[in-house]
């Protein structure tokens, strides 16, 4: 009985749906997290009677066919790259991007990774680094006697040095764009890597030509909407239960047949 297998594909799909939703909820408070949604597609159809086939010698054409589908498959878990809300922290080195772009981070192995999480700190050499200690690109080194760190909307970092009444620019934090940011691959720790689907990184200046602007002293919250996640969760759970019901109904039908002529 096909229905058993069809319902099984449905249960597997809803299981993955719940997994994706629970990951979104788990990352509700993760800075710069972008939520995912599972997308499904129907499987191929068995055309028991093909529509448009000749039904008689007189040339009558079947107006409808008998198409029996084989269930559902997961096609992907696309990431919704919408802007998260900014929350003020007051920390000088907390940065948020409003609009397009990612911070570029230099990893210990020399490769670059990208993030929307702007929770930056200073390391023992005065470099601006992520919470894992990897430097933001281009590297900004803040002199140890500097005060009043300011980051402009364009990413210019300026500090006030002792004995000076004016601030001086010490570097520029870059912003990188991708033509298909949803094609980036998440690697955990709020980081993404470039893939063939994302396209090549395009380094630019914040607040220019389609690049988002930087906001100092703020962090971008996850773009997860709890209420919609909860309602999606309920919908997924009910869909799972309905598929389970189909399995038990199909099972009962088979049972009634096998119990025949005992």
């Amino acid at each position: 009985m096909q229905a058993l297998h069809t319902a099984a594909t449905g249960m597997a799909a809803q299981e993955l749906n719940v997994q994706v939703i629970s990951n979104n909820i788990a990352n509700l408070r993760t800075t710069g997290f972008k939520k995912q949604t599972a997308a499904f597609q129907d499987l191929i159809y068995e055309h028991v009677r093909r529509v448009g086939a000749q039904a008689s010698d007189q040339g009558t054409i079947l107006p409808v066919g008998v198409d029996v589908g084989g269930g559902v498959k997961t096609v992907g878990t696309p990431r919704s790259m919408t802007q998260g809300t900014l929350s003020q922290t007051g920390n000088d080195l907390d940065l948020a991007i409003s609009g397009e772009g990612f911070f570029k981070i230099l990893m210990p192995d020399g490769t670059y990774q990208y993030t929307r999480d702007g929770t930056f700190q200073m390391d023992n050499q005065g470099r601006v680094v992520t919470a894992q200690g990897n430097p933001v690109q281009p590297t900004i080194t803040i002199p140890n006697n500097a005060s009043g760190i300011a980051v402009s909307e364009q990413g210019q970092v300026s500090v006030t040095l002792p004995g000076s009444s004016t601030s001086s620019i010490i570097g520029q934090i870059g912003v990188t764009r991708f033509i298909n940011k949803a094609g980036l691959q998440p690697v955990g720790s709020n980081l993404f890597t470039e893939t063939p689907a994302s396209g090549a990184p395009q380094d630019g200046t914040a607040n220019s030509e389609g690049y988002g602007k930087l906001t100092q002293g703020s962090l971008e919250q996850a773009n997860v909407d709890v209420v919609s996640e909860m309602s999606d969760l309920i919908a997924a759970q009910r869909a799972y239960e309905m598929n389970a019901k189909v399995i038990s109904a199909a099972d009962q039908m088979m049972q009634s047949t096998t119990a025949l002529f005992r």
Partner: protein
Amino acid sequence: MQNALLIGLSRQMTLERQMDVVANNVANANTNGFKADHSLFEEFLNSNAREDNFIASDRKVSYVQDRGTFRDVGQGPMEPTNNPLDMAIDGNAFFAVQANGGERYTRDGKFSLNSTGQLVTSDGNLVLGTGGPITFQPTDHDINVAPDGTVTVLEGTARTDSIRGKIRMASFDDPAKLTKLGANLYDAGSAVIQADAKSVVRQGYIEKSNVNSVGEMSRMVEVMRSYTAIANLLQQQSDLHKSAIEKLADVPA
């Protein structure tokens, strides 16, 4: 005497297939742009005695066979996603996509961009506009899709909209006649494709599956009960048969 068995069998076979159709609907209750299928049955008359030697002509035996599955092409509910590349069609039209094997149609508007900036479906098939695929430039932002399908963007520092194409909405006389190919795609076959003036594109929305879960569940119960009722009928028929043979074979003392 065997007719009841055969009629029961014909009905059970169609019920089994109907159950498969219901199962597929339920499995796709969360599939974007999915349209539910329903089964149709017809009576299939067959004379059990070919030669009309009897005085009164023999009664015909009425079997069941499934005539077809028809598609509920009704609008699915719209879910807001805030994603500028998610699109839903309000109306009867379909998105045209360039799939492997030719032009195909879909109601699943979960679109994204590929690495060259072209608008694609979740499978990477190109979404077709009235003038071919819709391609975005690396500096494009603020993508806006008008209800008529016109895609505009702000390019770089420009303050005025640039047009990137127009989503093509293909419409058919009878969308129920499109063949389902799986992967949310439909094949139009020889159907005439018309331009649709009534349908509108809603940006930032996804059309969900139009499967009515309550209806499917009650249909499932109905199918299951009919099936088991026929199994009972077959059992009784068989018992009758058995007792008849036993009675007839009973040698009187």
